[in-house]
């Protein structure tokens, strides 16, 4: 704990942030996820906020930054004697449902070790996921994106990406800031609060199989803390260009309990991946929109010290420092829509070998993704992504095991995704997605030490995804 706190104190990019803020003030102003619940609340069609769901347009990003509160339906209202609004509720709740169903075909069957046979080659999921959303305004400056999802793996309903948000506008015309948004977000997945599709939570692939073979080596910011942490943060969106955010995450795990009291907390050594104290998350980015084009470039990161299961609060922690850089370009024409997302995440891991997970004292993990997508009339289109995860060889973390193991002790996984989509309606996507692996867990052939090749994990994924 003491080690963690002192290292957190060293994390002070104050001067840098200050420079960015000053720079934003000096700049003169210039001309200036997807739910039907939002459509119900705003009266505006999907295409206002989404190019093709779930990718956001500049308007969609602003809707989210403004706290999901923009509403065009009749309100149940109350005011006090000072004419302040004390209640503003939509007459109809902005509820919606999302359904995903799919079929996955693996290139080569998975061994059935129990009876010396093989698994089925196909896996059908109906539903793959079923979600209930409340997405929209709660009060004048308060809104929510709340998602409950039924999981086929556990046959239970659990919390999915959720974001409670307060936002308001301010103005500083005398220093060249005619309008800025300031807001607070309380969310349960680092980057789920982000409004660009080049960060992990809302990045491509937007939908993927749950029945394939996964490469489990992921950076902390790339979904590892999703729905097991809660972060409270503040953000600024200045002059429709500059985004600044700092959020602190703590562990907020569901389905766990304190082994002494039987209550849901405080967490102890029986819970895995506990964040020690607060994990700071930061985000800085610049968006430039012109004509039908929107370009964004940014950086984000997270630093967290975590305890694995079996290690107490005073025991050794692993410290992860993630630096991400991302960029996004969109061309949003009347007929043609073209997008590129680029993401690169570097993770430095200070492993405490005393806790028995890693063999090395320091490890590295790098993830890169480059995606291009095109749609015609928001009806037919597709995407291509090349992806790569590479990292330090660590025989403590990566060991030989059938299908999911690594004979080389390495996480390296590389390949490409090809996807074709057809949207008969704006809120329904039918797709075919093919994932091809060039390398899996460190090798092209016999990567697991049991004769499986990377290409055996190639996956054909056919899906229907609709929200209403």
């Amino acid at each position, binding site marked *: 704990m003491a080690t963690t706190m002192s290292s957190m104190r060293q994390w002070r990019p104050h001067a840098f942030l*200050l420079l960015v803020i000053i720079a934003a003030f000096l700049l003169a102003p210039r001309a200036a996820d997807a739910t039907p619940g939002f459509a119900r609340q705003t009266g505006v069609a999907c295409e206002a906020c989404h190019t093709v769901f779930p990718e956001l347009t500049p308007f969609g990003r602003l809707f989210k930054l403004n706290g999901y509160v923009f509403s065009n*339906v009749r309100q149940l209202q109350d005011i006090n004697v000072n004419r302040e609004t004390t209640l503003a509720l939509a007459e109809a709740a902005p509820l919606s449902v999302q359904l995903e169903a799919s079929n996955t075909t693996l290139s080569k069957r998975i061994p059935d070790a129990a009876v010396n046979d093989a698994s089925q080659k196909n896996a059908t999921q109906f539903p793959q996921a079923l979600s209930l959303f409340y997405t929209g305004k709660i009060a004048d400056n308060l809104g929510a994106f709340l998602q409950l999802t039924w999981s086929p793996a556990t046959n239970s309903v659990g919390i999915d990406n959720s974001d409670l948000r307060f936002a308001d506008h301010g103005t500083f015309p005398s220093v060249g800031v005619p309008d800025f948004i300031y807001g607070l977000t309380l969310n349960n997945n680092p980057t789920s609060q982000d409004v660009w599709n080049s960060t992990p939570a809302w990045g491509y692939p937007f939908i993927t199989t749950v029945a394939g073979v996964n490469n489990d080596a992921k950076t902390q910011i790339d979904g590892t803390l999703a729905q097991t942490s809660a972060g409270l943060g503040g953000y600024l969106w200045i002059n429709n260009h500059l985004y600044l955010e700092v959020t602190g995450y703590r562990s907020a795990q569901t389905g766990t309990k304190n082994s002494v009291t039987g209550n849901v907390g405080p967490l102890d050594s029986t819970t895995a991946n506990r964040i020690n104290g607060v994990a700071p998350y930061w985000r800085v980015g610049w968006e430039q929109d012109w*004509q039908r084009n929107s370009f964004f470039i940014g950086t984000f990161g997270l630093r967290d010290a975590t305890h694995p299961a079996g290690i107490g609060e005073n025991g050794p922690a692993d410290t992860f420092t993630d630096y991400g850089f991302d960029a996004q370009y969109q061309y949003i024409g009347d007929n043609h829509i073209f997008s590129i997302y680029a993401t690169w995440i570097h993770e430095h891991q200070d492993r405490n070998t005393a806790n028995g997970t890693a063999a090395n004292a320091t490890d590295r993990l790098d993830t890169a993704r480059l995606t291009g997508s095109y749609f015609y009339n928001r009806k037919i289109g597709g995407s291509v992504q090349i992806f790569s995860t590479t990292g330090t060889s660590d025989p403590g973390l990566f060991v030989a095991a059938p299908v999911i193991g690594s004979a080389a002790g390495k996480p390296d996984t590389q390949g490409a995704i090809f996807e074709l989509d057809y949207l008969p309606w704006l809120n329904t996507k039918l797709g075919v997605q093919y994932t091809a692996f060039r390398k899996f867990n460190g090798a092209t052939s016999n990567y697991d030490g049991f004769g499986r090749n990377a290409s055996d994990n190639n996956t054909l994924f056919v899906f229907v995804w609709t929200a209403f």
Partner: protein
Amino acid sequence: MTLHPLPAALAALFLGTVAAEAADNSAALDLIRRECSTCHGAQGVSVSPTFPNLAGQTPQYLGAQLRAFRDHSRADPHAQAFMWGMAAQLTDDTIKEMADYFAKQPAPRGASADKGEVAAGEKIYQEGVEKQDVPSCMSCHGDKAQGNELFPRLAGQRRSYLEKQLEAFSTELRANEIMHENAKKLSARQISDIAAYLSSL
């Protein structure tokens, strides 16, 4: 006392917000700042060619369109996708205030376009096309396309927006008898030329 620069900057920012120069907080101006500006620009100069410029538009036309979005009598695709929702809860007073605000903003300068197209478009705009029985546009929209009450200003408007509107009038996606009669007689080439000319003004 040592002040850390980041907390100091943030504190200054938030205190400053409270004390920031008092903006005009009328409901209409607040809506323009928060919502309309996203597509149409804070001063009515649109961000993308998908959306029309509103700066310098006649207040009568702006008011009529907002009322038509509100009562769904203007029903072209973008009207339904964007503006039906946007205008749903607007009161007559708010509509008037919004229309007056955008009408007072300085109209944008035109965009450059191919000289040949501009010349061809100008000829149609000023003289009409006699053999196609198309009257001059100028007679209603003004000699400088500055508009006249319910006849909108067209000068400096986004080229692709103008083209889309003429196509929508032609196919009656956007209902307007006079414009339907005129637009349906124009070829795609002529529509493109007229739009080039008007967007260049």
